[in-house]
């Protein structure tokens, strides 16, 4: 069984973090989350990290792997060489709580403000006649609220008031399928210097998204919609 070398960012707020190397034996079919969990179980019980579902559904295990935002649970070890080092650091642009753990509540509170429909129509069956007794099929939104896009976004680094890619994408989803929601409020939320206009199209959100959300395109659609609304108001409301 191959031995993998992991370099984990360790430490607690108040002291400067350090990188520590661990060696862990696991088959190449295992995932990074298995390696980190095994280090916690067998080598260092003080290691802090977030995880829950282990299949990219809960969004808890986002970290930076060799600098890039990934979910540990769907990062296979076979991507790496046992001779190399896998460096794991916490997400950026979140308050750091220690080791690989960050506080995601600022993002969650922003998402809660949007209050978007968490359930969406299932595209597989949206246009298919369903047998009697089967209701319209629904499924969860693509966004798992993992925060990878916030960590990857360079604008988040400079503007802490920026709504961020996940939130803007959520607003766009809500506008696309409002189900009686208050669209005017959402447009106001997005039409803000720290909202849709703050994005500088670095495209890293879409590049790191593990769940097909494509926030960059969503922000583009949101802007188009805001422009149309403004034009309509400008033409219609002209005195």
């Amino acid at each position: 069984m191959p031995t993998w070398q992991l370099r984990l960012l360790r430490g607690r707020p108040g002291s400067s973090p350090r990188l520590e190397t661990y060696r862990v034996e696991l088959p190449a079919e295992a995932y990074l989350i298995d390696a980190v969990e095994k280090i916690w179980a067998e080598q260092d019980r003080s290691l802090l990290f977030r995880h829950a579902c282990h299949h990219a559904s809960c969004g808890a295990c986002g970290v930076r792997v060799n600098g890039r935002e990934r979910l540990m649970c769907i990062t296979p070890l076979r991507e790496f060489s046992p001779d190399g080092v896998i460096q794991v650091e916490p997400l950026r642009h979140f308050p750091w709580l220690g080791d690989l753990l960050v506080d995601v509540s600022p993002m969650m509170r922003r998402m809660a403000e949007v209050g978007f429909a968490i359930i969406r129509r299932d595209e597989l069956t949206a246009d298919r006649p369903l047998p009697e007794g089967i209701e319209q099929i629904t499924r969860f939104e693509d966004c798992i609220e993992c925060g990878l896009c916030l960590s990857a976004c360079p604008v988040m680094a400079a503007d802490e008031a920026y709504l961020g890619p996940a939130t803007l994408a959520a607003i766009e989803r809500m506008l696309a399928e409002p189900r009686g929601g208050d669209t005017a409020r959402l447009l106001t939320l997005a039409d803000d210097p720290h909202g849709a206009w703050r994005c500088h199209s670095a495209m890293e959100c879409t590049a790191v998204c593990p769940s097909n959300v494509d926030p960059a395109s969503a922000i583009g659609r949101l802007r188009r919609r805001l422009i149309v609304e403004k034009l309509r108001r400008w033409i219609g409301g002209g005195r």
Partner: protein
Amino acid sequence: MSYHVVVIGAGSTGAAVAHDLALRGFRVTVVERGEVASGTSGRNHCLLHSGGRYAMRDPESARECIEENMILRRIMPEALELNDGLFVALDEQDLSFKERFLAACEECGIPAREIPVKQALALEPHLNPHILAAVQVPDGVFEPFRFCLSFLATAKHNGATVLTYTEVVDFVFQGRTVVGVRVRDRRTGEERVIGGDIVVNAAGPWSGKIAAMAGVDVPVVPTAGVMISVGRRWNRMVINRLNMPGDGDIIVPQRRTAIIGTTSWRVEDPDFIPIPEDHVRLLLDRAERFIPGYTRGGIRGVFAVARPLVGRRGVAADGRELSRTFECFDHAVDGVEGFVTITGGKMTTARAMAEKAVDVVCAKLGLEIPCRTREVPLLSYRAFF
């Protein structure tokens, strides 16, 4: 009344217990050594059971499932994908179970109905075209992390305190009565005592270890299972094999993935479960029989976790033979007062488990407060943060 209850574990059981306690007016502190749902609850198969899976072998558990399924649809719509389930017969042997299955579902109160094969294939175009029969049941899919967060968010709203990354290291006794727990804050390393009138052990497959800390025995049998998530959602409905529960006989869809599970073997230490390679091969082989080309979208994740099955004290049995129902142990019978363990069960039945546990807590304190968790809708999981 201001009794204080300490709940150990923030998985589905602990979260539901905290919610029930808070709703009945208790002061509640939940201690969890990791993240919410970082144990068995998080790594769940995500199946909101209709009960169909247990109707033939374990009707008690099946009845609990359908009842709770209907309650959860009312109280936590945010954490559910309501997409129904199909039981499909892949061969003649499966087909021979059909009548028995329909009768068992009827017996347990599970709305099940056979749909023509052609219709099933129209609904599920990727399903093996050679299926012999299909029965539709009200299965569903939940989001395990949000499931637990919803209960905890509501509990917090009602005054509960949730301490994550806080590990129980010991129990505090007064004579033979548990009066609190000693916990370590894993972020600071500091230890402190949290006093409680009652301590509820809701640590799932770890509840045996926790109980041992208090010097009592809980016959929990950590029974692991493997699940494999792939890069494509092949099915909209949950696809079950129409047979007795076995390995690799259920594919649960969620978002854009599908998850085949499970296997079953007994483990000693649920902290880290190495994944047996032959289980992966077996699951993929079985998945192929339901949905030819199952892995064509690539394998996305492979994970294993231990179920907290309840054995009979002194009786050796494990895996598929053990009931999926739950047990609440008042350790007064073991000579330890102030300590209750709630374990076993399914995530689908978490609310019912909590009701039972809190009924026991109330009885121990001589209180009569009715349970209201059937009616009260839960807050959004985001309210937890």
